[in-house]
């Protein structure tokens, strides 16, 4: 079976202005939402206490709230998690109780409600740890980008490196932006997923760049735009097939992997879709706009010198 019966000849670069407008609009909306609404940060970053309790039967939330407030947790946020038998309780810090003890008190309140309640999960993150994680998370993303910039710069040429990083930033901003727009909880696994998106999206971009480099060296006629177009068409079915297989497993993870892994799977699904788009449009357009030409990648043997000589 084949996605395309014949070789495709889609003029991707001809549509690059349209794509650029689309990307810019998406980025502006994403950034706008991140600035205006912010992220629905999980307790990994904000600090706080979260208790998940499993009950043998479906449980009414008002009952849970009532019990909690009678034990002094009036401001607890209560919701079902996955099923109506599971309850997630978020607790605000209190001045008179040691934070690490909050969860124990809340759970014993639940035991009073139903003695066969099952403590499924406690997450408590102190405020100082949360702040550190936020900082570390930001740094990690920065380090990943710098590492990639250096590797691609060495293996290809600086314009490819810049193009790849632009495509990555594009993907990361839009992915995080969607989490902000829909106020989906952004926790540590989601951050890990965003970093994995960096890896994935780059994988796609590198495959495209690899072909562009090869074709610049191989094809004698045609301007940069034509060669980039040819390369994109040649790699198109691979790009789509790989995205498809990855999406298949991610959907399996999203639907069967359990509630805890939901946000993680969602971030990757968004990232893979955006990453596929960006490896075709953003990565290609970026190097074209930076004026890549055959001369930059010739001759093959003196590749490194060619990089040094580019102004």
């Amino acid at each position, binding site marked *: 079976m084949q996605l395309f019966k014949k070789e495709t000849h889609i003029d991707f670069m001809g549509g690059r202005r349209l794509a650029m407008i689309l990307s810019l609009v998406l980025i502006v909306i994403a950034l706008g939402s991140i600035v205006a609404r912010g992220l629905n940060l999980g307790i990994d970053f904000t600090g706080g206490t979260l208790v998940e309790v499993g009950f043998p039967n479906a449980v009414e939330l008002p009952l849970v709230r009532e019990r909690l407030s009678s034990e002094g947790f009036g401001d607890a946020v209560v919701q079902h998690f996955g099923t109506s038998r599971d309850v997630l309780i978020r607790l605000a810090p209190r001045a008179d109780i040691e934070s690490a003890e909050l*969860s124990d008190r809340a759970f014993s309140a639940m035991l009073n409600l139903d003695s066969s309640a099952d403590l499924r999960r406690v997450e408590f993150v102190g405020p100082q740890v949360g702040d550190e994680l936020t900082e570390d998370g930001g740094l990690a993303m920065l380090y990943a980008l710098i590492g990639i910039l250096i590797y691609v710069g060495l293996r290809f040429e600086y314009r490819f490196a810049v193009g790849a990083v632009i495509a990555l930033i594009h993907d990361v901003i839009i992915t995080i932006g969607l989490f902000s727009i829909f106020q989906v909880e952004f926790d540590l696994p989601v951050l890990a997923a965003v970093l*994995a998106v960096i890896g994935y999206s780059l994988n796609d971009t*590198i495959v495209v760049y690899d072909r562009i480099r090869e074709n610049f060296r191989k094809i004698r006629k045609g301007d940069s735009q034509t060669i980039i177009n040819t390369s994109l068409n040649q790699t198109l079915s691979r790009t789509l*097939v790989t995205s498809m297989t*990855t999406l298949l497993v991610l959907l399996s993870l999203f639907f069967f992997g359990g509630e805890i892994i939901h946000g993680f799977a969602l971030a990757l699904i968004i990232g893979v879709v955006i990453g596929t788009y960006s490896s075709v449009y953003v990565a290609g357009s970026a190097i074209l706009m930076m004026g890549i030409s055959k001369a930059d990648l010739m001759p093959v043997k003196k590749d490194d010198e060619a990089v040094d000589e580019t102004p």
Partner: protein
Amino acid sequence: MNRYPLWKNLLVVVVFLLGGLYALPNIFDQDPSMEVSAQRDAVIDQTTLNRVDGVLQQSGITAKGMSLEEGKLLVRFTSTEDQLKALDPIAAALGQNYTQALALSPDIPDWLVGLGAEPMYLGLDLRGGVHVLIDVDMEAALTQALERYSGDIRTLLRGEKVRYVRIGREGEAVIVKFNNAAKRDQAREIIYEEFRSLILEEVDEGEDFLVKATLSPTETQSVKKFALQQNITTLRNRVNALGVSEPLIQQQGDRRIVVQLPGVQDPAKVKNILKATATLEYRLADTEHSVEDAVNGRIPPGSRLYHERNGQPVLLKKQVIVTGDQIVDASSGFDQRSGQPAVFVSLDGIGAKRMRRMTNENVGRPMAVVFIENRTITHKVNGETVKKKIKVEEVISIANILEPFGARFQTTGLDSSEEAHDLALLLRAGALAAPIEIVEERTIGPSLGQDSIDQGFRSVMIGLALVMVFMAVYYRVFGLVANMALAMNLVLVVALLSLLQATLTLPGIAGIVLTVGMAVDANVLIFERIREEIRNGSTPQASIQAGYEKAFSTIIDANITTLIAAVVLFSFGTGPIKGFAITLALGILTSMFTAIIGTRAVINLIYGRKRVKELAV
């Protein structure tokens, strides 16, 4: 012709067999079990085994098996219910000198164990348990060190007969005040000779001549290091006494300690034991003065006002007979006369001598036992983190000294036998060198852990099946070969995780799922190349050759960049995230082997030896 040299074919076969072998332990069930180990001078032998066997028969629980291993007794059960049911009777029968830890023990054949094959090490989020991150209060450790120096300098100057006006800690320094410069200079020399680790500074303040002693940077470092090490040791003692199999207690950064306790189901108890700074003090009661006067604010010098647990005020002497530091051993039990829960305490030489002298001199007078506990409460006020320290001091027992006693005696007055047990544990394990605070906790109940394993396993299988069907339909014979490589890749990842004993976490499983999706990428690249070559008119054999060759550098480039992301993730991440980074990185490495060399070996086997007109790609 596409043919692999023999060694390459052998390599693929050998790697596959080894991978299968080391992945094998994972398909065996893990039995709920109990590890019984001895404390102090007790021993584990056939007698212990027989006793446990007897207890189990009495309670009507059948063990799946029992064995003696490296000074431990391992009892296997058929269900978790039996395991939990057996805990109390065994603990009661064996008594104080043995600890019981609940564990999961794989039931793998001996020949596999002999090869060093083990199942994957499951993270806490999969097996259930308690993870806490503990922050050591370094400022308090430094303050304590300064207080200690201030006392030592006092003793030193007294010994050398150098008169000073005042000695005390002020902020981050010890200040010694003199009334003339000559004495100050003399003292400075003496202090300098004795305490090289202090930085001494001479300050003149009008009539006062001061020596200002601060800790040198190396001393500051070593005080901090010592506090951390000491706390780790104490925490380890406490955890060992709790009875947890495979506990992890590890330094993280320069002031934090990670404690991971797999299988522990009562986080409240664990946290209380870990962070407790509880200790005991023995003081004489002040019977000469009136308690009412003291309550009204007229506390006699040399005495202090305390309260009993029921709120009753008591007046005690300031002078302490014995502190918790002098307690070398403690165990819990019941008072023979009253049947009340009691803690039996043994003192060290100095403590015993003091106790003997004081009780000798004060027969018939009341002595009090003070229970001391420190707590830290952290909360945010207007975005600022505020720490509040609370010291709880309660008199738990006050009784007349009937006869003089020395090194061994008992203390009653505790609320329950559980409290007696916990206090004995704390006294035995020693005090913490610096106050600690729990700054992070992640507890996963056993039910959630099992759910995560089941759901993770299911999503891997469904994802794998979907990808395999897609590949078979899309690339036909080549797709089937890629599927073989994919399955082999999964086996290799599992084998490597088992071999390295790297922790498998829930995000780690997600990493495996992701690898399944991305592992076929290399094959997609190769197969698309082969198709292109065929379209360009190459012969089938040449197309295979060119397809693999041309795709190679692309695959390497693409995978190395993903590896960079995985390495960054690993270096910054904590627990679960590290698990994701590990499986992602391992998956990338193994997939390069299986997708390039593995598939090529099979493709060569199918097409390499004969003339082929058409490829099923």
